[in-house]
């Protein structure tokens, strides 16, 4: 799954949050399934060229959110999930839609036109 992770070091959003959000999305979308092993901190740190403490911090956050579990002496695994509610999935998209709407407004594009654009890029 490491190849699915991407970070933007200069985006202004802390890297550990970027990682936490991405892995949360992979779990919510079913890309990562209950019981799947998470790669080791070392492997993630090395392949993304980021500080291992950042990866640990993100894994801690996932543990706190109960999205993953760490059975004694084993690797971190995706937790048996209660299906992620639609509500939660929508919350994940909110920052993006917020920005999209703001830019649309700056460009004086109305809601109808924006919906049309989303429809077109959906295909």
């Amino acid at each position, binding site marked *: 799954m490491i190849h699915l992770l991407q*970070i933007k*070091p*200069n*985006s*202004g959003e*802390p*890297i*550990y949050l970027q990682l936490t959000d991405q892995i949360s999305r992979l779990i919510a979308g079913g890309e990562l399934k209950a019981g799947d092993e998470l790669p080791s*901190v*070392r492997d993630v*740190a*090395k*392949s*993304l*060229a*980021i*500080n*291992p*403490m950042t990866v640990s*911090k993100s894994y801690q956050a996932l543990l706190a959110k109960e999205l993953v579990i760490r059975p004694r002496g084993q690797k971190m695994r995706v937790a048996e999930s209660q299906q992620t509610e639609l509500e939660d999935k929508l919350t994940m998209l909110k920052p993006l839609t917020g920005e999209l709407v703001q830019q649309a407004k700056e460009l004086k594009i109305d809601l109808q036109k924006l919906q049309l654009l989303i429809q077109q890029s959906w295909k």
Partner: protein
Amino acid sequence: MSMIECKNLSNNSLKSLDFFLEEGRVLGLLGKNGAGKTTLLSVLMGVLDKSPYADVKVMGHVPGCWPEAIKNEIGYVPQRFWGFDAMSIREAIKTIKPFYENWDDALATELINEFDLPEHQQIKKLSEGQKQLTSIVLAMSFRPKLLVLDEPVASLDPLSRRVFLEKLIENHCDLGTSVIFSTHITSDLERIASDVLILKDGTSVISGDIESVRESVVRMKFNFPKHKKLTFDGLSVLSSSSHGDIQQLLVDQGGLDVKQILTEKGASNIHCEHLNLDDLFLELHS
């Protein structure tokens, strides 16, 4: 244990500089050209002098006064690699290897291959980037506990730079190597550093754990009547500017409710923004 303890360091280009590097941390050093980065690293390596009042210890000793065993646990990549001109990379390795107990041939070979270095070519015929990579191979292969890197990626292409960062992180994960490195590339620093030290005019303007710095240092934009005088007492203001009624401050909040304090002083319409290191750096020098 502190790998580096630096108190009240002054000399021709540094002014009462204080900072620490704890074991297992990666410290990124930022600053304009001439801010004192190379001077600082040279002092730490015992190459440059400091004032007698400075209290500087690197791995528990005054720089330059290390017992042999400790000296061999410090890897240094200077800004410009020199020496070994007539030798090939392999010959250079053969020459320095006997000095280091922990020299790791497998690691040296792995780095040479990953960096795509021509190991049998004379060092003087290598490009600047290849010389820099050679210097990195020589400094990392004896598996030091502390790596001191002066702009290690300055002459590297994006691909070599990325491979270098990966290798550095791998080494850091396996051995817990502590690192201090200077750079102008803030995105590299955001990636691999746990701590940051920003130098301006020879002294530290921002230093600490990178997450805390990003959390604590913010840009505040607000309205303040032009004819009134705004005082910053009690606030740690790093830079300020104003255009008419609009004021902008770079503030280290340091646990204070700065928004509240500014409101009490008569500011309104306050916006608070967290910055990435790039913006932070620009803001500090604006």
